[in-house]
């Protein structure tokens, strides 16, 4: 028996556990995906006509669908990552996390198992949302490279938000807090370029909207999917924010994990 932990094997074991949870408790996944679908349908079919007219002289519902879909995709990422906070808080409150911590397993594997599980959930969720958007008439014009870059950005942003959510779940004393704390993440796209161009906002709000993490991610994603030129500075900001959020979440979660009193 070697004294080394088995990080990869333990992470896979934890991933299997989390996938089994998702299959056995699909209502959480459905709830997390339901919100972006409702937003998509609401904003396209209820507000879309008016909001589309605001996009420019020949704007309309179809143009608004193209505008809002990248924002909805990012909301999906935020919503799915929220599920991580809930499941990690459930682990912590139910005592199973304390059990894991008394076992000779790779300490990070409990957390990476959650991140990988959420990533799979997010990829599937994004495919569903994209299918709904396309059924509604969304026609992305990205080429192969554009799709690849868009997928890469979404995966990176998912990993970032998931680590942050994980830390928020660990810092929460109860599952209820854990489900509310990251809620702000699903609201940030509204205070950015997710639903309306930021230049339509009052100056004071625009400053926040232009530089908060979601706006560069949404803008870059939009350019990639619609095949319009990508703003290099914006793309760098999107990747930079994602890396910073991922690092903060990772370090914070790793610090919290051994300190979370098992109950």
């Amino acid at each position, binding site marked *: 028996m070697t004294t080394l932990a*088995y990080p990869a094997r333990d992470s896979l074991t934890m991933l299997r*556990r989390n996938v*089994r949870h998702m299959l056995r408790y699909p209502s959480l996944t459905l709830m997390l995906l339901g919100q972006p679908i409702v937003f998509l349908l609401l904003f396209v079919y209820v507000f879309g006509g008016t909001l589309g007219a605001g996009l420019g002289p020949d704007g309309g519902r179809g143009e608004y669908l193209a505008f809002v879909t990248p924002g909805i995709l990012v909301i999906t990422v935020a919503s799915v990552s929220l599920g991580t906070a809930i499941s990690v808080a459930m682990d912590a409150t139910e005592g*199973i996390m304390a059990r894991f911590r008394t*076992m000779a397993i790779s300490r990070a594997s409990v957390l990476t198992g959650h991140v990988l599980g959420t990533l799979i959930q997010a990829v599937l969720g994004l495919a569903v949302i994209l299918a709904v958007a396309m059924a509604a008439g969304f026609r992305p014009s990205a080429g192969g490279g554009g799709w690849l870059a868009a997928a890469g950005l979404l995966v990176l942003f998912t990993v970032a938000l998931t680590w942050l959510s994980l830390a928020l779940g660990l810092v929460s004393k109860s599952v209820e807090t854990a489900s509310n704390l990251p809620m702000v993440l699903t609201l940030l796209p509204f205070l950015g370029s997710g639903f309306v161009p930021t230049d339509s906002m009052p100056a004071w709000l625009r400053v926040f909207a232009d530089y908060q993490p979601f706006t560069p991610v949404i803008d870059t994603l939009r350019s990639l999917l619609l095949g319009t030129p990508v703003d290099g500075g914006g793309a760098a900001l999107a990747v930079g924010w994602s890396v910073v959020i991922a690092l903060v979440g990772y370090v914070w979660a790793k610090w919290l994990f051994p300190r979370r009193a*098992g*109950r």
Partner: protein
Amino acid sequence: MRTSTQPAIAVTGLRKSFGDTVVLDGVDLTVEPGTIFSLLGPNGAGKTTTVNILSTLIEADAGTARVAGHDLSRDADAVRRSIGVTGQFSAIDNLLTGRENLLLMADLHHLPGAEGRRRADALLERFDLASVAATTPATYSGGMRRKLDLAMTLVGDPSVIFLDEPTTGLDPRSRRTMWDIIRDLLAEGVTLLLTTQYLEEADQLADRIAVLDHGKLVAEGTADELKRLVPGGHLRLSFADPATLGRAATALGEPAGDEESLTLQVPTDGSAGSLRAVLNRLDDAAVDVASLSVHTPDLDDVFLTLTGHAAAPEPAKEPAP
């Protein structure tokens, strides 16, 4: 093979505070391999904190500890490989079936698949859980959950097992079952550190008992040695109503009592003279005693004598078995 003669658990000067609250105030313990050692004390005595430190969940502020021959602070992973922990709060995965819970443990102990399945099935059989192996614990009784919890602890074949109040909240029958399981484990050569607030449980199971009160060990020994610390047993006097109870308490110098059951416990050396003296004092105060019984020394008396207060600080939520 556990042939080594070094202690299974050796603790010196263990201290832990949470903020300003001192929870452990210099605890020394030695547990010989293949024995059951019981930490006995009321809620808040520091039992769970001791288990949490020894099972690597939290770090002590001071003191040294070796568990299964490994230093707790220097080689926590080696300690983790040797121990199993069943805490007060069930540490089972409620979304996995009983069998999947055990297989999860087998995977985390890096057992080969076939060996993991063999151990899981053997434990399900042994703990009478085979019939519910394919259902999630949501449908289990408290006793079944506790058994699954303990079974999960055993998958890794630990040599030292921590049981933190393993029978708290169980009905008397499940408690007996758990006691039998614990005795079986001992017969297999495992070392057990058991915390309990039930005196009878420590008396029934433990080879040695340490009495923990406010973070300090106030006594340690076998059940018999502890009982010898108390000269006699006690008289248990019952009264008809609270007023009578109050007058009796005054007459006898406010001994320990229980207002709910209208009883008083008066220490006695068991002689007829001491019995007569108590009754005379009650007679002088014109107090009627509804009933009276004489108890030989038990751990309750030990606790009372050592700490000056009863084992259960508040009226116990569940009566001891």
